[in-house]
């Protein structure tokens, strides 16, 4: 059943659980480095390997970051709380329990406003708590690299123990047909907020921002339906698609008189649909109890107040400021947020480019390139500073608009920085008078009849000579200068 039809008949309740990998230098409970991409098991120690006898010691910066996130989300910060053990077995868990928080999270009861199609939606936040990440398992021997059909698995614990902040919304209701875009807008806004706080690089593709989407449907007036949890939602676009897909699937089932099974579903990027994973009918008994190896956290209220006062401008305020300062419209800034390029545009402006130019590049050519490469704009291999440089080169006349795109594509292809690409590809605008004059004379000589027409007063015919020079210089000549020289050489004026 199509999404819109489903939400005309049913009401959706959405919940979002987001895991944020903090960008701390060291792990949550030990001093191992957290650098992404290191050789397997080279960033481990007795603590994060769960060796017998090892003990955790909490990372102060991770605690601080969690509190700052909670404050930015308007949460209450606990005056006293503890870590808890969440007990379950899995090979990527070195201790076969995860040190997390249970009934005493660091932050509770907050909210985040998101703009959706001109309206403000207040997303309620249930809790923000701190825990540790697991290792990574490679499944070998199966078809798709997933578990099913694998003959064995290989485990790397470099990621085990990296601090993870879990942000859980309260059920989001009353979104009507906008459920999917609200979910996406929330994740986008959250991502922006977290980036602004400097606590994580929040890259969904790298896994430093992970999203689980909970969905349930109910007919108006009836109690909430059974909800499913969808995992493997690895991009903003997937958030929206996952909600749409689940709403459609559940509506189909309910319409047909069936029952929704409480389960975990897996989102598939390629099909945009979800498949059944683990059944959650029998909820795992995690046997939570307070972590005896760690002592309670009692954040000093004065310190928390300082952190609150020092919070950076929230994204919504920054957008408003941008709108005012740079003369961009509300619609523009919303478009930039949705495309995930707000910070990139700002950074490009910070590097000296005019706002309109920066906007045009990131919402235009670069957004297209990101789309066709299947990546998000901030993953493109071009930095805001480089974009600003290209803009400057065009402004000073060294590059034409067409050439500018070629330069950017060259940077994306890894050919180097803008100036290097220009040099390597010989993309300089030819504006040297001598060179141009030579080229013009050659064109005149080769097109004597056209030249004669111009001398005779048909100035418009000069365009063909300009065209010939442009062709001869492979489009790199400064067209305006060429025209001027042509007319000069032929002794006519405009």
């Amino acid at each position: 059943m199509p999404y819109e039809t489903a939400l005309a008949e049913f009401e959706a309740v959405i919940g979002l659980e987001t895991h944020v990998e903090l960008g701390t230098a060291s792990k949550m409970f030990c001093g191992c480095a957290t650098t992404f991409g290191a050789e397997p098991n080279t960033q481990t120690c007795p603590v994060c390997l769960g060796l017998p006898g090892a003990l955790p010691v909490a990372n102060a910066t991770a605690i601080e970051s969690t509190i700052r996130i909670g404050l930015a989300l308007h949460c209450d910060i606990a005056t006293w709380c503890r870590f808890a053990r969440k007990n379950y077995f899995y090979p990527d868990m070195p201790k076969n329990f995860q040190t997390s928080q249970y009934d005493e999270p660091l932050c509770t009861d907050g909210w985040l406003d998101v703009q959706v199609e001109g309206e403000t939606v207040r997303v309620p936040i249930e809790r923000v708590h701190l825990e540790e990440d697991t290792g990574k398992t490679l499944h070998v021997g199966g078809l798709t690299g997933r578990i099913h059909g694998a003959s064995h698995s290989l485990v790397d614990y470099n990621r085990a123990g990296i601090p993870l902040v879990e942000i859980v919304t309260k059920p989001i209701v009353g979104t009507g047909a906008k459920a999917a875009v609200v979910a996406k807008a929330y994740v986008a806004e959250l991502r922006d907020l977290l980036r602004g706080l400097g606590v994580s690089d929040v890259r969904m593709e790298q896994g430093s921002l992970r999203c689980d989407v909970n969905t349930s449907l109910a007919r108006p007036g009836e109690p909430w339906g059974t909800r499913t949890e969808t995992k493997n939602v690895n991009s903003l676009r997937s958030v929206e698609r996952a909600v749409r897909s689940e709403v459609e699937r559940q509506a189909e089932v309910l319409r047909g008189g069936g029952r929704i099974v409480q389960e975990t579903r897996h989102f598939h990027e390629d099909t945009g649909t979800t498949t059944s994973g683990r059944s959650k009918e029998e909820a795992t008994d995690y046997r939570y109890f307070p972590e005896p190896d760690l002592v309670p956290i009692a954040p000093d209220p004065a310190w928390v107040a300082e952190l609150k006062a020092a919070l950076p401008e929230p994204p919504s305020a920054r957008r408003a400021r941008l709108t005012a300062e740079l003369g961009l419209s509300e619609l523009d800034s919303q478009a930039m947020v949705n495309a995930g390029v707000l910070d990139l545009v700002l950074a490009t402006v910070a590097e000296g480019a005019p706002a309109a130019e920066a906007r045009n590049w990131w919402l235009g050519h670069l957004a297209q390139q990101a789309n066709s490469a299947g990546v998000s704009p901030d993953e493109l291999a071009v930095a805001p500073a480089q974009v600003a440089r290209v803009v400057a080169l065009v402004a000073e006349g060294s590059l034409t608009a067409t050439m500018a795109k070629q330069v950017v594509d060259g940077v994306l292809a890894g050919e180097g920085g803008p100036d290097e690409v220009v040099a390597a590809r010989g993309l300089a605008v030819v504006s040297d008078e001598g060179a141009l004059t030579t080229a013009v004379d050659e064109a005149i000589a080769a097109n004597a009849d056209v030249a004669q027409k111009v001398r005779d007063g048909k100035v418009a015919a000069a365009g063909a000579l300009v065209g010939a020079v442009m062709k001869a210089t492979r489009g790199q000549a400064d067209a305006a200068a060429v025209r001027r020289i042509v007319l000069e050489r032929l002794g006519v004026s405009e």
Partner: protein
Amino acid sequence: MTELTRMTAAELAGAIREKQVSAVEVAQAHLERVEQVDGRVHAFLHVDEEGALEQARRVDAGELTGPLAGVPLALKDVLTQQDVPTTCGSKILEGWRPPYDATVTERLKAAGVVILGKTNMDEFAMGSSTEHSAYGPTCNPWDLSRIPGGSGGGSSAALASYQAPLAIGTDTGGSIRQPAAVTGTVGVKPTYGGVSRYGLVAFSSSLDQAGPCARTVLDAALLHAVIAGHDPRDSTSIDAAVPPVVEAAQTRDLAGLRVGVVRELTGEGYEPGVQARFDETVQLLQELGATVSEVSCPHFGYALPAYYLIAPSEASSNLARFDAVRYGLRVGDDGERSLEEVMALTRAVGFGPEVKRRIVLGTYALSSGYYDAYYGQAQKVRTLISRDFQQAWMSVDVLVSPTCPTVAFPLGAKLEDPLAMYRQDVASIPANLYGGPAASFPAGLSDGLPVGLQVMAPTLRDDLLYRVGAALEAARPAPAPPLDWES
């Protein structure tokens, strides 16, 4: 000079310092002793001859100095020692060589102490007789047909059979004190947090504590001073000065000390001989200048049941890491079985019955629907017991009781009845739940077998234990084991 293996740690350290004897000679004498008698006692699971001699050489070369430099020591096999087999008395860690030293081990090495080897213990410190070791029991040097106590029977037996003058034990519910009591040696459980748990393979995290074991009070104090102190790698480690234990061990005076006899820890359930030795010892304390009164700690009777909920619960979680993935035993991996099956099989084969019993019990006590009824309630009992202690400190400085209700019982006598075994800890557990320091000192013999006096003190007042023990020892030296099986 007395035979090297009969000397105290303090004497040996002095002799080495004075160059009357070399550390290597001392080490060799003890290694020979181990070879001579440990076939009968089975205190050691692993003897590190090469490592011990190397360490001794370094002491002789002047590289390592300190009050205990060159003195041999037996280390309970629950503490990691880098590249030396550490089994925790379990098959699941057979052959495992840790890639790191426990903080206790590091401090011992830095102090020039010569670690002879790792001692036998009840598997993962769960037991009161060392009969639950996967490697066979240790025998009590006083009578080889009897248990040496547990879980640290290997350490106390090593002391009592003169295989080492010093040992390290760990105490969760009495595992240092009860072996000390039944082997006639000194065993001290420091204030919780007083000695780092980094590298101490966890049984019950909120209760475990490593501590010194020796034949004399001063030796135990010297060892205490070496291993205690803040460790930033242990979040539960106390950041305060180590109590003045050595100084206290050299005081022989009990004048002005108020001693409380815990009413709930005497009488019924305590063997008559144990009770009698206890009463005499209390009398002696009075003669030495202490004021003795009776104190009631009304909730101490609930300590045992609370412990047998808290400890197995924490243990069930702590032992989850033994899963055939990163270290230890792996069985049943035939290429067909899944990881889940291999894990379950390995754990079933690698863990002994007592460990499995406690894991299942702990899993039950923590499971949803039962947490509030069991683990949750037990944590409340902890509060009540702490309050009993706080109340007591208003009128007395230390509390005393028999360390355990019986003398060493015959091997096999309590294996069929877990509850009977658990009752060995009835007097020792309160101090673990409270977190305060407690010790066992020799208090005479009953039918030729040692009895221990337990002394308990307020948190961070470990020195008071040594003060009492030293005075007692000076007035009435502890009897030596007959060792008639030696010849």
